């Protein structure tokens, strides 16, 4: 019987630092839930350490960082390092918010997998996650 031990894609959605604009993060969390994913929404005022802890303890496959306060570079690069130090380079790391193009390129060089700017459709994010995580699950089994 197939459906009794089900699987789901687990996503941590987090907002680092003092930025309180959570409309986007909450909309994305809702959309991911509607797409059948399990979303741990850590809320605002997170530190890189508390975000790392959530990722590790929840065994998340995806981390979505939302930042509209201009401090995305510092937080994201610090997280990339923490993830590497804790053996989670495999994590799909997405950043969303008001990110200029140049910064997006730098973020990807630092280890962020994708940057989603304002106006991104949630279905694009869902598809992206499904494709990337689905592929990872397949290669693992």
């Amino acid at each position, binding site marked *: 019987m197939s459906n009794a031990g089900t*699987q789901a894609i687990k996503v941590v959605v987090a907002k680092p630092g003092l930025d309180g604009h959570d409309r986007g993060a909450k909309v994305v969390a809702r959309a991911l839930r509607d797409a059948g994913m399990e*979303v741990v929404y850590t809320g605002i005022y997170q530190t890189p*350490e508390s975000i790392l802890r*959530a990722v590790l303890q929840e065994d998340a496959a995806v981390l979505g960082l939302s930042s509209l306060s201009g401090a995305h570079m510092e937080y994201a690069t610090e997280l990339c390092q923490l993830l590497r130090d804790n053996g989670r380079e495999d994590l799909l790391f997405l950043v969303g918010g008001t990110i200029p193009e140049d910064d997006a390129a730098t973020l990807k060089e630092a280890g962020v997998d994708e940057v989603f700017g304002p106006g991104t459709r949630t279905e694009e994010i869902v598809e992206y996650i499904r494709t990337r995580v689905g592929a990872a699950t397949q290669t693992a089994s």
Partner: protein
Amino acid sequence: MSTQAEIEALLAQHGNGAGWGPLARAITRVENSPPWDVALPVPERPVHIVGITGPPGVGKSTLTGRLIEAYAAVDARVAVLAIDPSSPITGGAVLGDRLRMETYLMGRDDVFVRSLASRGSHGAIASATRNVARLLELSDSFDVILIETVGAGQTEVAIAELADTIALVTVPGLGDAVQAIKAGLMEVADLIVVNQADRPGLRETVRHFRLTLGRDVQVATTVATEGTGVEGLREKLDERWASLGQNGGLAAVRARKRAREAALTAEAWTRALADELADETDDLHTAVKRILEEAARRWSA
């Protein structure tokens, strides 16, 4: 590698100081396997498993957060399982409980919190949760395991029932919050916690529970937002654990719970089979006969 072997390997990694990662992955293995396929050994060192239940809006998450602080204050290592309902339509879930506990977790490396979505039937999630708790016991990394359920109703009762101690949280007033407590839950509670105890109606509420459940029922009163009474609650929980440890009390409780768990697991298995055979049903008696015959056939196969 079989699921069993994988889980053992991950527990070993965790035990060797590899941190939360392997433990979390072991939990995922348990989550992703049907509960009847998970056969974990009986832990040598049992850990107090406390179910924190009650209707929504009574401050369970805040109370759980405060309990974490209270346990940490006496150097007890705490693990928390927070169960949120999955959407029956999409299968997804927003696991918001961690968020509600976050302030009490800030800066702590030593508290383990895992959110679980209630995938599947109430029997399936109850046995899965109990298995995850069993895993946490086997890890030898914790002194107390708190299980907090967010939903209300059948699922909550099923999950809570399997804990060693069931704490039913409510608020003063004999209105909605008290009426909403499912009869099943009230009767199995080992301890009543009246939170928001600074609200009017405390005395009548405590009296109501004593009249309904017996004069000796354990009642704790707390104001979780301020932390008042939480130390007392922790003491009551520890006292209960200590008394269970004497005269085979714990063994008796666990035997009873294991029987319940077996029933729930069997129910989950049979339910999944029944769903599979759904299209072929005719009259009720024939349908039931067929399910049980197929069940016997498959299980012995």
